[in-house]
């Protein structure tokens, strides 16, 4: 397959989650919704079911207003709306992590409003000590038991080990993609980069890995191009909608790295290798996760972004502030200050899932691009 054919397949998945879900259901597979940002997807895969990202959608919530105030996270508002309005029917269950205050409540609102899709909650420890990781292992054991009820058969250690291999291979190829994409910023423009990264949520991982390998191979076989525009990093929960990213392309700005929960944050580290207890290995991945949703006394995320800016020679950083996402709001002043100190300007852009005009965003991005020179 040539590059465009692969990209078109990945774009289709990113833009048509419902069709991707129906495709899996038509094949007789059970599909389990996985809420942002972290769930033990590997256990869903190990159960022979398909993990499916639930990242909300661009929509005006209506039914969700019965449960949530207007200042609730847009992703969770629209995800709940999708559950309430039947747009997620077909899922055999959803897994919801209790990573922030709104998430705590969403587990309860889901139970009340969407009783026909079983909800499996999972609590991630904030202290990633040995005791914390042991606790997470116990949480995963509970999730495993609940998934076994959904799939109707036991999930063996061998099944989990196999899935860990699948996920580690996927992580490796996604990291390879983000590196090689920077050699081809003409092909992998901001919208396309986002589609490639987002598509991973709506395809079985082994299948996505296969396509990504083909893509990476094809990109490596293509003559690298020298990008003449401005290079930026994206940080935040998600950078959507496409119209926002298109404005970057329109202004000759490329994305050369990201710290988005929906994208590269998923691939910061592989699951620890070894032959030991697979659930403990799975839990071990959480130990090093840098994210606003994971306690980080040393604010390692700030240093990581400074390093990323240096390594990618970024001219600036766009902080995609998901509206009403308080964990991100606490990190922004620190990140902005640290990047400013190394001469990398930041733009804090509010990201929403409710339809609205992009004109103000266009003006701000144009000004920012001009400022980058």
């Amino acid at each position, binding site marked *: 397959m040539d590059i465009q054919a692969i990209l078109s397949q990945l774009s289709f998945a990113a833009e048509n989650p419902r069709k991707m879900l129906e495709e899996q259901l038509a094949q007789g597979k059970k599909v389990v919704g996985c809420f942002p940002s972290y769930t033990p997807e590997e256990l869903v895969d190990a159960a022979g079911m398909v993990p499916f990202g639930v990242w909300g959608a661009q929509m005006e919530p209506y039914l969700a207003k019965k449960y949530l105030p207007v200042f609730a996270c847009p992703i969770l508002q629209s995800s709940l709306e999708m559950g309430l309005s039947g747009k997620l029917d077909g899922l055999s269950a959803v897994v919801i992590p209790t990573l922030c205050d709104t998430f705590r409540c969403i587990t309860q609102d889901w139970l009340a409003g969407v009783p026909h899709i079983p909800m499996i909650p999972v609590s991630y420890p904030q202290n990633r000590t040995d005791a914390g990781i042991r606790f997470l292992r116990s949480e995963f054991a509970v999730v495993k038991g609940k998934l076994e009820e959904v799939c109707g058969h036991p999930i063996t250690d061998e099944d989990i080990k196999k899935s860990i291999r699948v996920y580690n291979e996927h992580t490796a190829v996604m990291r390879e993609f983000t590196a090689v994409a920077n050699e081809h910023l003409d092909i992998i423009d901001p919208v396309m980069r986002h589609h490639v990264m987002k598509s991973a949520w709506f395809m079985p991982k082994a299948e996505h890995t296969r396509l990504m390998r083909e893509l990476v191979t094809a990109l490596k076989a293509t003559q690298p191009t020298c990008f003449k525009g401005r290079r930026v990093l994206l940080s935040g929960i998600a950078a959507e909608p496409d119209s926002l990213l298109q404005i970057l392309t329109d202004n000759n700005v490329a994305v050369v790295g990201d710290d988005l929960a929906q994208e590269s944050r998923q691939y910061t580290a592989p699951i620890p290798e070894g032959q030991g207890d697979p659930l403990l290995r799975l839990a071990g991945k959480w130990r090093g996760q840098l994210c606003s949703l994971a306690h980080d006394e040393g604010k390692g995320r700030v240093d990581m972004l400074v390093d990323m800016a240096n390594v990618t020679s970024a001219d600036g950083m766009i902080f995609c502030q998901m509206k009403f996402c308080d964990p991100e709001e606490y990190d*922004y002043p620190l990140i902005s200050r640290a990047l400013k100190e190394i001469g990398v300007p930041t733009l804090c852009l509010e990201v929403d899932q409710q339809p609205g005009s992009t004109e103000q965003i266009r003006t701000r991005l144009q000004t920012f691009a001009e400022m980058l020179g």
Partner: protein
Amino acid sequence: MEEKVTQAAPGAAPQKPKKPLPKSRIMVGEQLAKLYQDTIDAKARGEKIGWSASIFPQEIAEALGLYIVYPENQAAGLAARHQSDDLLAHAEAAGYNMDICSYARTSLAYMDTLTAESNNMPKPDFVLCCNNICNQLTKWFENLAHQFQVPMFLIDTVYNYDPCASEEKVKYVRAQIDDLIHGLEEISGKKMDYDKLTEVMRISQRNKDLWREANELLAAKPAPLAGFDLFNYMSCMVCNRGKESTTAVLEQLISEIKENIAQGKSTFPVEEEYRVFWEGIACWPYLGHTFKTLKKYGINMVATGYVNAWGLEYEPGDLDGLARAYIDLPNNNNNLETVVARRIEAHKKFQVDGTIYHVNRSCKVMDCQQYETQRRISEATGIPFTSFDGDQADFRAYSEAQYETRIQGLVEVMEQRKKEREGGKG
């Protein structure tokens, strides 16, 4: 301090003399002032002092004899005295979004300035955080620790999506308490005396019982106290719940309440027409307005989940029990079913006629399941409710007109119910 005397305008009605404060109020005021001053003095002596989240296992630092102050208490106090507006503006100028909890914004600004009109706290040598109230505390205290370059001790209690804590969770929190003890021993150079710890736990339990008793005395009809009065004593439980001075304050308060009951009196200044349950934190910048509006209709707030949030129950000396108590107590750390069951029990016990829900703009964990909570409690009890938009410390999120209209609406329903009840009796 010399008392400020305001000259009355010629022809104006003479000012109503202020009622003398009850002895317990003077005691609690002195106790809190002493805590702030003691901490400043300790810092000046070179001792290590800490800042702490309010529902943190205070027993550990108390037993080690460390001085601890509480940013939530600081922020609430500043807001109630209308002294936090500049701090909120400072935080926003520093890049903190208005969406962030207003206690946190106040505190993150104070982190920069270390100056406020009152409730000043010295720079911490460590910070103590527990996320059983909310996850914003984790982020807030991370930023404090980062700015001050001091260690942070986080007791992560992990949300109870099940009705109560699992053994695995208790083990995890217990391990964190052990780490906390060792960490504070290292910082302070003091060694934990476990007999002293048991004694602090015993005092804390005694205080918890007294606090509960004081609250439950408001179940009497009419209530012997204006429910808002209890807000004035919360610092006992927030900042001093492991101290014997709190035992003295609460014993005095209880004796005053009992005296009111014996004499058929109440501090609620008008006849108690209606009794309500208040859900959520007080609206500190508008405490006067929220109270006076209720008073106008004879509504006494006789119960609130917030005031009761410090009833931590364990056996003195049992550190697993301590861990369990800090996981299971706070409503914000519990699933909807548990919270609703507790609330229904309180609605019945305190014989309330209505519920007022504060949609607190600062507190997503309280707001994002509140609509379902309202429906379930009302369906189970038949008690009407209203809600209003406000904030615990940001004056910009509250509308006096909206509050008055909502309360008026609730009164109409309560009045109708009352007539039906009285008609039924006749």
